[in-house]
């Protein structure tokens, strides 16, 4: 514990860095997956191909991606850009599947009703489909957020600083406390981001809680 108090500034710096890299990567992955998932949902033939493709993407081990991306992108191996590209790709790979499921969960009858009420395609997508797909999207986003926070720590092996640096450093110095602080900090960050997502869901989709309550 004394180590934590002596190094509180260092841990705080890593925590903030870990948080912003995770949040940015998750958001990029989410935003990229929305149009792909919507398009795949509308076209069953593309759906099969895209779900298979993102499945293959997700199969590729993260450490290998962290190492190979700098060679492909031409960035330095210590550049945070590699890590963000890699984590966003993983996030998108998982989210495309969730997005297809989410749009699939919207009742076709509701969409027909919106069309007959005079909604244009764009209005229908943004004012009917997207909000109704929200709860399933949120469920996918929560899974992605947690795994992104955890996966980022692996990037410390190639020297990109984040809370995982406490693991590599603690191991090299044979110092258990530092590793424990790292694990606790990562779990706390994952729980905090998850709580934020749940809160955002309640604020943006106040009806979903009522619905869940009613259906039980």
């Amino acid at each position: 514990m004394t180590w934590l108090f002596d190094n509180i500034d260092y841990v705080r710096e890593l925590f903030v860095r870990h948080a912003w890299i995770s949040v940015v990567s998750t958001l990029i992955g989410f935003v990229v997956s929305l149009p792909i998932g919507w398009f795949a949902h509308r076209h069953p033939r593309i759906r099969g191909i895209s779900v298979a493709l993102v499945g293959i993407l997700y199969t590729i081990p993260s450490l290998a991606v962290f190492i190979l991306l700098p060679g492909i992108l031409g960035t330095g191996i210590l550049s945070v850009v590699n890590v963000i590209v890699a984590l966003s790709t993983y996030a998108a790979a998982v989210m495309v599947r969730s997005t297809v499921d989410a749009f699939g969960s919207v009742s076709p009858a509701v969409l027909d009703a919106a069309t007959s009420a005079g909604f244009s395609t764009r209005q229908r997508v943004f004012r009917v489909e997207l909000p109704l797909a929200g709860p399933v999207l949120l469920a996918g986003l929560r899974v992605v957020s947690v795994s992104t926070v955890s996966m980022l720590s692996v990037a410390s092996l190639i020297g990109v600083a984040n809370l995982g640096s406490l693991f590599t450093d603690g191991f090299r110095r044979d110092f258990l406390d530092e590793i424990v602080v790292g694990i606790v900090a990562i779990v706390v960050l994952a729980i905090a981001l998850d709580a934020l997502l749940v809160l955002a869901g309640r604020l943006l989709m106040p009806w979903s809680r009522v619905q869940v309550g009613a259906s039980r």
Partner: protein
Amino acid sequence: MSVISETVDWLTDSTNWSGDDGIPHRLLEHLGYTAETIAIAAVIAIPLGLWIGHTGRFRSVAVAVTGALRALPTLGLLTLLALYLGIGLTAPLIALVVLAIPPLLAGAYAGVEAVDPQTVDAARSMGFTEWQILTRVEIPLGLAIIVGGVRSAVLQVVATVAVAAFVGPGGLGRYLIDGQAVSDYPQMAGGSVLVVVLALALDAVFAALQAFAAKDRPAARPVGV
């Protein structure tokens, strides 16, 4: 281009294909750790998952535990156990087993749960014992999802064995970690290519097994795995 050609040179250099730190030996080590981990984790997780799926008991506990384990950072668990138990194979093996359990468990209970309850009731009304229902109805019908759980677990373990090289053991991850230590990028990239190829090959094998298990049913992976 030079980075790519140097990586190709490393991969095709005959000296990298022989001896104890040669690619064939490292590949076998990698597969060996993976098989050992999956075997131990499966013995623990699959019977437990089948029981949870069949009885419906402790389902919410299983969901909560598998969700919580997802937040646990792999590298943190590996380094923690390695310092605690000392250098050797025991620490990485325990960490790998802990990480392999959630997908196996989720696959097993999701597979059993996915079976139509009416089919289960029909079997029960025909006088099947609970054991017969499990082994003759639920496991055969849920097999594709159970195998899907094994597939997820295998992929996760293959990826994590590469990370585990940091705390000592062999496997293909040695090239990634040792290359990094001496700033030998072609070795790191060459090793990474091998890890990727291994993961894709194993995924293809399990996709085929899953399709075989599903026969005429569409292949499915458990939700959230």
